[in-house]
């Protein structure tokens, strides 16, 4: 009682930060992906949650069946013309802020499917934050993509759809 001065004790036990930094840390540590497996890339996306790769280490293992509970959409596979409106609707149903990872060659550019049925890159439909190359990408590559997204969130960079918004502050207005 009164033997230790109050000042050094407080300095030892209290960490100062900003609310914004705290929020970003919380966001990047709990990215919940929506399940959007469209093709063979989905198999690699599933294995990333298994114990060998263990996406839970990065707080992103909780794949949600409802877009209302998801922050991240991993588009894993080729998007057909018929699927595009569905994908867009599900993306619009996700609460903000939200991010999109385009996984693999087909989602990023159409891949080998340069034909009438396949959208030549999912960025024609939704704004994409991180592109993961590969056919299919290895689970390590998808992990790297998610870590890149975490870095982006930590730095406080806005999601792609806000970047593309016509005026700053106009939320969700993309194209």
């Amino acid at each position, binding site marked *: 009682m009164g033997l230790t001065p109050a000042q050094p004790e407080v300095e030892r036990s209290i960490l100062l930060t900003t609310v914004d930094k705290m929020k970003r840390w919380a966001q990047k540590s709990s990215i919940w992906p929506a399940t959007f497996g469209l093709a063979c890339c989905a198999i690699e996306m599933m294995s990333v949650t298994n114990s060998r790769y263990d996406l839970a280490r990065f707080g992103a293992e909780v794949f949600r069946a409802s877009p209302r509970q998801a922050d991240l959409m991993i588009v894993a596979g080729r998007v057909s013309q018929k699927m595009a409106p569905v994908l867009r609707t599900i993306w619009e149903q996700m609460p903000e802020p939200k991010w999109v990872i385009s996984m693999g060659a087909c989602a990023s550019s159409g891949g080998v499917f340069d*034909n*009438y*049925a396949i959208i030549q890159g999912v960025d024609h439909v939704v704004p994409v934050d991180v592109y993961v190359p590969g056919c299919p990408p290895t689970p390590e590559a998808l992990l790297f993509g998610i870590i890149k997204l975490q870095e982006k969130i930590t730095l406080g960079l806005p999601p792609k759809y806000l970047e593309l918004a016509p005026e700053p502050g106009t939320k969700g207005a993309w194209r």
Partner: protein
Amino acid sequence: MNRNDPEILTRLETRFPATLAIVETVDQPTVAVAKESLIDLFRHLADLEGYTMCLDVCAVDWMPTNPRFELVYHLYHPGKFARLRVKSRVEEDGTMPSATAVWAGANWAEREAYDLFGIRFEGHPNLTRIYLPDEWEGHPLRKDYPLTGPRVD
């Protein structure tokens, strides 16, 4: 093991002498028939010969030639384990008699041929697109359909 029934070719030839032709194949008995007598042949095959299953209806686009489209029906005899192939041609602006009255299972296969080739089947109960969106323009498996997809950008 080949359990097909090659004798059916001669039986069909005597039954339909004017409109039926035997096609040389390596795998299974095949006949080509004019589309006018197609349903008669199908009734005969299903009711009297016992080919009670229609496995698939395929379409081929032989574009420069006329008639343009060829329908290939694969039939199956569950008792004999025998297969039979029937081919028939139809013009681009013509209609094909629907096999749904003989085999109800031809329904979706014919819708697929309509969806991707634009072949119209007369007497089909629900001739609408099956794979592509309803508002789609054109029939993608036709030879004159653009090879690469529409660019959004």
